[in-house]
Each structure stands twice: as C-alpha cells, then as structure tokens.
C-alpha cells in the first residue's frame, strides 16, 4: 500500500469454491494511518491469510485515516491498525499488525467455516 487515499483490492472469486448460503463475499476493511511499518505488515499479513483461506471471495478496503479522519468515527476506530470485518455480519474487529495468524483466523471466524 502506498500513500493512496483508499485502495480497493477486489479479487473475483474463482468457480468451484465451497458452497455458501448467501455471504459469498467477505468485505474487510483495514484502517491505517499512513504507511507505517505496522500498517504495511498488517496489509501483508492480511493478504496472505485471505489468499490462503478465502481464495478470491474477499474484498479488502484500506482506509487511511490520515487522509480521511472523519471515517474513523463510524467504525469506532481507536487503535491502529484495525481490521474490520464488515461482511459477513456481525461486525468484528481485529487490532494489531495481524502477525498472529491463529488469532486473526479466530477473530475473523474463518476457521470454523473452512476447516
């Protein structure tokens, strides 16, 4: 992630993934404050996890609060970096650089659905 304002990475899900009732798509939002080492690490870790576990059914939205400070209010962002799982509901938040993959999976509630 460079210092772009909001960066969207969407990867179309490939055919033949495991069946899901309706929430095929995972919408993940990563809040950061500029390209700090923690932010970059978090994005890298997130991508890796998503690529591994969600094969293409996800969308990552990176929001840089330095550029858009007003966006932090709605998701009640305090700590950075914060990953917010907007979909599937309920909303879940993961704080930190996402270096602990196990906890990220627990936090996103991925494990149960995919393993």
């Amino acid at each position, binding site marked *: 992630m460079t210092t772009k304002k909001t960066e969207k990475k969407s990867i179309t899900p490939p055919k033949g993934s495991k069946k899901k009732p309706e929430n095929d798509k995972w919408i993940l939002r990563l*809040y950061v*404050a500029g390209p*700090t080492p*923690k932010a970059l*690490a*978090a994005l890298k870790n997130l991508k890796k996890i998503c690529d591994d576990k969600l094969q293409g059914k996800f969308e990552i939205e990176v929001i840089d*609060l*330095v550029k858009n*400070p*007003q966006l*932090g*209010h709605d998701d*009640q*962002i*305090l*700590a*950075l*970096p*914060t990953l917010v799982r907007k979909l599937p509901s*309920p*909303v*879940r*938040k*993961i*704080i*930190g*650089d*996402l*270096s*602990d*993959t196990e*906890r*990220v999976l*627990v*936090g996103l509630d991925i494990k149960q659905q995919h393993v």
Partner: protein
Amino acid sequence: MKKIKEKPVTNVLEKSPTGIQGLDEITGGGLPKGRPTLVCGNAGCGKTLLAMEFLVRGATQYNEPGVFMAFEETEKELTTNVESLGFDLDMLISQNKLKIDHVFVERSEIEVTGEYDLEGLFIRLNYAIDSIGAKRVVLDTVESLFSGLPNHMILRAELRRLFRWLKDKGVTAIITGERGDETLTRQGLEEYVSDCVILLDHRVSEQTSTRRLRIVKYRGSSHGTNEYPFLIDDTGFSVLPITSVGLKHSVTSERISTGVPRLDTMLGGKGYYRGSSVLVSGTAGTGKSSLAAHFSDAACRRGEHVLYFALEESPAQIIRNMLSIGINLDQWVKKGLLRFHSNRPTFSGLESYLTVMHKEVNIFKPRVVIIDPISSFIIGINELEAKSMIMRLVDFLKMNQLTSFMTNLSSGGTALEHTRIDISSLIDTWLLLRDIEIGGERNRGIYILKSRGMKHSNQIREFLLTDQGVDLLDVYVGPEGVLTGSARLAQEAKEIAIQTMHHQEIQRKQLEIYRRKKAMEAQIAVLKAEFETAEAEALKIIAFEEQAAKQLAKDREDMAKTRKADASPEMVDSKKI
C-alpha cells in the same frame, strides 16, 4: 484570560478560567492553560459534569470551543444528562462550539493480533479539535480503554503519548479518572498528568452526603489546599471557597433599629451596627423568633430586603404566629421585600445548605439575613462541622456588609451562655433571653451579654410579648434577686409596705430623741438650780468667815491699844490679813 494576555508579564502560568462558580477562585484563575488536568473521584461524584461545564462555560463565556470525547456515555445520553442543568448541548453543537465524540470500545468484538497503537484515537481527536478550532478538550473517562483493550503496556505508553500530544497541541484538557483503592486513579493516570490534579469526593456522614473538592496539586501555581464543598444544582456546579475569605471586611458605624424601641435604648440608644452579627440565644419559647420578626419588620419598613432562613418552621406558620403579636410580615412578602427560605439543613447536608444560602443571598441581595435557628445545623455529632460552617457563613455575610441575625436554641440544663455551636467569639451583639421561674410562673427576661463597640445596658429587662409586639419592662432587682411578672408586682407592693413601716419607725425614733432631749434639758435645769443654791450658800459662809477674821484682828488691836503697846509691823501685817 484576555486580561492576562494583554499584560506584558508572560512568565506567569497562563490559566484558562473554568467559569465554574468558586473553582476559579481557589485555583487562582482557572486550570493551567494548554495543559491537561486530571479530575478524579469515585463514581457519581460529578467528574463528567465538572468537565462538561468546563466546556460549556468555555464555549459560551470565553469563546473557546471544546471537544468532549466520551468513552462511557453516548452523545444523546450526555445531552439529556446536562439538560437539567440548563446546558443546551445541541445548540452549541449546531453552532460549532462543541463537539461530542463518543468512543465506544466493545471488548467482545475485538481481537488483538500483534502490535498496535492508538493513532486512531489521536486522529479522531485531532480531527475533532481542528474541525471546530477547539481550545478545550475533555476525555471522559479515558481509563475505560483499559477494560476494552488488552496489552496494557501499549495502552500506557500510548496514553502517555496522548497527554504529551495534548500539551503540544496547546489545548486545555480535562481528563477524568475513576478513583482507585490506593491511588488517585485506577490506572495511575496521575503519573502522566501531573500539572494539575483535582480530586472530587462524595461523602456520607450522619446520613447526609456532602460533595467536596480538593486540589491535590497544581504545578506552578498557588492554590487553595483545603477541601471545598461543592454543589450540583439546576445552575450547574458551584464550589464554595469559603475558608479562603480573610478578615478584611470593611465596617460601618451606621446603626439600625432592632425594631423594639426599648431594646434600641439598651443598645446605646441606636440599635445594632449594620453589618454586624447578632445572636439571640435562649431556651424554647423565650421569644427569639419574635425578636427576629421585629427586626425583619423594622428592616422592611426601611425598605431593605430581608432574607429569612427558617430552618424549623414554614413561612406560613411564622407569618401566622407573628400576626398574633401584631407583626404583619405578610405585607412585606407581598411587596417582595421579605423572602423566606424554608428548608431543613438535614435535607441536603450542611455544606450544600451553605451553598444554597450563598446562592440565595447572591440572587436576592438582602441587607439583613435572618437564620432561625442556627442550632438546627447540628445534626448528630457534627458540632465541629457546624461551627466551621457558621463561621464561614458569618464571614461571608460580613464581607457583604449584611447584618445577620441568628437565633440559637439553648437546651435546658446547660449554661445559657453556652451556645451548642461554640460561636460566641464570632458574634458582635449577643442577646440572651431567659426564663425566670418564680412563684409558679415563667416570665421572660432579656439582657445583653455583649455588644462590641457600643455602650450598652447591663441590666435585665422583663420581656413581654403583647398584642403590639415585644415590650421591655424594668424588672425588680433587689436583695431578693430578679423578680418578674406577678412576683414583681407582689414584691413591689411588699416593698412599699416595708418602706412605710420604715418611715413610721423613723418618725418614732425622732420623737424619742426629742423627748430624751427634753428630759435631759430638764435635768440640766434642776442641777443648775441646785448648783446656784450651793454657790450662794458657800459665798455667804465665806463672807461671814471674812467678817469674823476682821473682827478678831480689830479686837486684838483694840486690846493692844488698851495695853499701851507700840504698833508693830507684825500687827500691820496681821491687820492686812
């Protein structure tokens, strides 16, 4: 604040006035400008309110917009909560003078994976500050982050950075914190916010609660160090910096009537000094309130405002009772000259009551304040507290040149000169009403125990409650003691009888003396007559004897002649004899 800016002196710590009644006085002008202040205290002691009032006053009175970052309550809740104090947050928000940001941390939906920082909070705060150009910030209660976020090491480091950042940002901040067991705040925030720490306390003693405020520290500034009571009511927060008032009140030599002509006479002919403190003490039913009513009536007749704190009776009851002795207080109430404040101090606690009194005095601006009776301030064993309260009250009234008239109910059995609240030294004029119980009657007596700075009568007067009000009579003072009522009348009659008796006795004595004198004179006359008789007899004998001697000498001469003897000198001598 503006004044400070205009002054060339810049080394002095700049202060940001809170606008909160009393707080600016004890902090010497407000909170440290551009620095964070920690306000800590137990739950429900008024931290949020203090902080909110700081922002609201800043926005409305000092043109300093503020940001309220709420970690516990939502914007809506806050707005509703302070609406009862007359703060319209919605209006301030719409005018961009206030911004409320509710920060919500839900532990259950947060997972922590690795390192994080609180940059998000900084950004939000910064955004909020910049969006309205805020000069004041409140973080209420930042400690709740500790329950929402794990890894306290990071949190502490981040909070330290936050406070530093607030300082750099140049905003005057209030950070609230819940009181811990041993420490001022649960998470030891006082380590980080060290410029100014204010401690709020909410104490219950003898079933009445008192809120108190104390400035634990204030770096770079002198401040009041005591615990100051404060009150939260429909106009917000008010702190009472009462013990800070010095003995600097100016005095006047103007005298005002007591409302009872003969009492004026007793007090050097002119009555009380204006601005002095008058205490009337006495046992139950001696007429203390009646004197208070007289004084109120006299003040109202002069067109002065009178504030009457009735601690035991309702206004209607006082008016009715005073009508029975011919004092119509109702007319003054209707004219707006007399105002009753009827409330028991037990209702709100002493300090709160004192605050209420201050407020009433400030609003109504009376010249005479009646407190009937001060003994009601003693609830249980709080005598010391009551004394300090009354001391501050008297000081406050004197500072404002108000004449205070207090009554004190002395309990039977104790010395009358002993007020239960030991305040006699504060009192300028002290009247004592006492029961005089003689011959199956109770009568009232009044005397002046002291009256500073004026000549006053040292006599006891009988105190009568008539249809036309209080009347004072001379009492019988004699060897039998002080007599009043019918005993006085009886004694007077007795005295007259005794006097008559004495008179008769004297007459009798005088007569006796006269008679004795007469008798004496008679005796003298007799003695004199006897003496004269004796004297005459004696003279007669002497003359006879002389005659005889002469005859003898002559006879001898004749004999010698006959014998033809010469005349001898002896003979001449004897002849002479």
